[in-house]
């Protein structure tokens, strides 16, 4: 049997005496979109950071396409085909928006994949085009609004042409119209294809989100974390009717 696309095995992370992630195990397939939800402080962002190598796990393993990537440097993980966005956006504020994306285009993975594209700028422009902010390419990143910063994060991640995309609250702080636009962009990206000179592999995705109504429309499965432990796992319909999930969100009386 082929190895799962992404396999997380007994992943644990301790910060001193606090266990942020507790023996989390799950796997996902190549064409899946997995939702990762849970109340504030449940450990969702920590989980993404453990997979991308920004944090080192205290225990457990992460396998990507059959390779052990546990504790690898972040740039090695990204160059293997995993890209992520940040919940609190981290643009290179004093650089023009196009230069923000060019940094991703200059990663070894992106350089290898776009051999026929001579100009990195053209590829970066296509990523911005995909994200819908190409008209502001020459502006400094510090001038962008919250919604545009989210798009910039997506453009930067897409520019590495990932096979697995980890999106940390892509709808956070967006207006309903912007949320719809972002959801459409995500679905379009997942379908794959060519966006100008950029090639989308149709990446698998893990999406952390609090706007559950939007999330339910685009994910195949949902994993629910509470206090660092998986409390539910299944299709969106199964998860929303799960008693433990309702209690985690609303408290014991809320159910």
């Amino acid at each position: 049997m082929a190895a799962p696309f992404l396999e997380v095995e007994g992943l644990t992370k301790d910060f001193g005496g606090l266990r942020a992630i507790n023996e989390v195990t799950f796997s996902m397939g190549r064409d899946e979109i997995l939702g990762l939800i849970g109340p504030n402080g449940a450990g969702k962002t920590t989980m993404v950071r453990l997979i991308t190598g920004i944090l080192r796990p205290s225990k457990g393993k992460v396998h990507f396409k059959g390779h052990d990537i546990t504790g690898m440097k972040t740039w090695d993980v990204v160059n293997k085909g995993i890209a992520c966005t940040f919940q609190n956006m981290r643009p290179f504020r004093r650089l023009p928006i196009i230069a923000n994306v060019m940094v991703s285009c200059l990663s070894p993975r992106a350089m290898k994949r776009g051999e026929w594209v001579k100009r990195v700028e053209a590829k970066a422009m296509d990523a911005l085009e995909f994200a819908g902010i190409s008209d502001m390419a020459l502006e400094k990143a510090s001038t962008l609004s919250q919604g545009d910063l989210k798009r910039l994060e997506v453009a930067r991640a897409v520019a590495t042409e990932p096979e697995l995309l980890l999106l940390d609250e892509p709808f956070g702080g967006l207006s309903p119209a912007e949320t719809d636009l972002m959801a459409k962009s995500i679905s379009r990206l997942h379908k794959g294809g060519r966006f100008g000179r950029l090639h989308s592999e149709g990446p698998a995705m893990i999406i952390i989100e609090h706007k559950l109504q939007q999330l339910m429309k685009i994910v195949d499965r949902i994993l629910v974390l509470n206090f660092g432990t998986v409390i539910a796992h299944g299709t969106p319909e199964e998860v929303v009717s799960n008693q433990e999930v309702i209690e985690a969100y609303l408290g014991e009386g809320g159910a």
Partner: protein
Amino acid sequence: MYWLMANLRQAGIIVRNEVFVLPSRIAVLVFVVALLALPIFTQDPYVLRIIILTSVFALLAASWDFLSGFTGQMNFGHALFFGVAAYTAAKLNLDLSIPPWGSIPLGAVGGVLAGLVVGIPCLRLRGAYLALTTLAFPIILMGVVFALPDFTGGELGISGLSRLSGSRVGDYYITGGCMLVFCFLMWKITDSKTGIILHAIREDEVACRSAGINTTRYKLMAFCISGFFAGISGGLYAHIMRLAGPSTLEVNTSFLVIIWSVFGGMVSIYGPVAGVFILFPMLEFLRFIPQARMLVFAFLVLLTLLYMPEGLIPWIRDKIEKVCPRCKARNLGTRSNCRVCNAVLD
């Protein structure tokens, strides 16, 4: 002959269309021409010596800007690269009789190794912690210099190095030429794709790693490149003074480099060069009031930083030029339309 004329004509067109359109570019051209033409008008040894030392320190300040300004690796011990290269060049010149054209580049290799020695342990450090750790290295090396007087010459240093060239004018053109060429090289690096990555590391290292960039490699590269250019200036200094002493490693040297760079304007390469060319000769000029010399110097630096926090040169540049809101090209301040896209300027 025809080929030469065609090329000269092409160069003339480039200068007219690219240089004479912006005051900052004209200023750079005037500076380069003035620097190269100065010995035609005066060969006063004192004036030439001041400009020679200014050129050496300008290269040192630009190398600091490359590491600390562009890459954000705040280095409070830049004198280490300068001192290591000065001592290396001195030892090679005196013990192995290697002439300056060999000892200076080899001294710069010493600067590169010093860059690695500082860079590797400092990879995980940032901000104030990095600054204080880098400050410690030249102090440690100065202790070593005093502990091994037979090898390093102790407090007196190593003297009697061979001259850089046979004449003061020769020294002038070698140091001035090296400064111009190496500063141009540094500027080209910062203006390249590598430069974008160095900028990104300064802005947010975690985000840069998450974009798939091996930041460790680029940070070490920045330490080595900066160490190399600082090393060139250290080697030149040793051969001009014909001495490599502990003063090259002093904390004062490290901090002067920072003051010059911040005064002129960090993250520009040309800012620190301008800072040195203003402040270093000014300190010499103020020698007729020796008691108040440092006071005037400090007052001027304070005033500049108070009213021009970005530094003197970016402040002047922003006053005489404006950026096009559409294409971001710089234009002469008096223009009403952009010279590139013809958009209306504010």
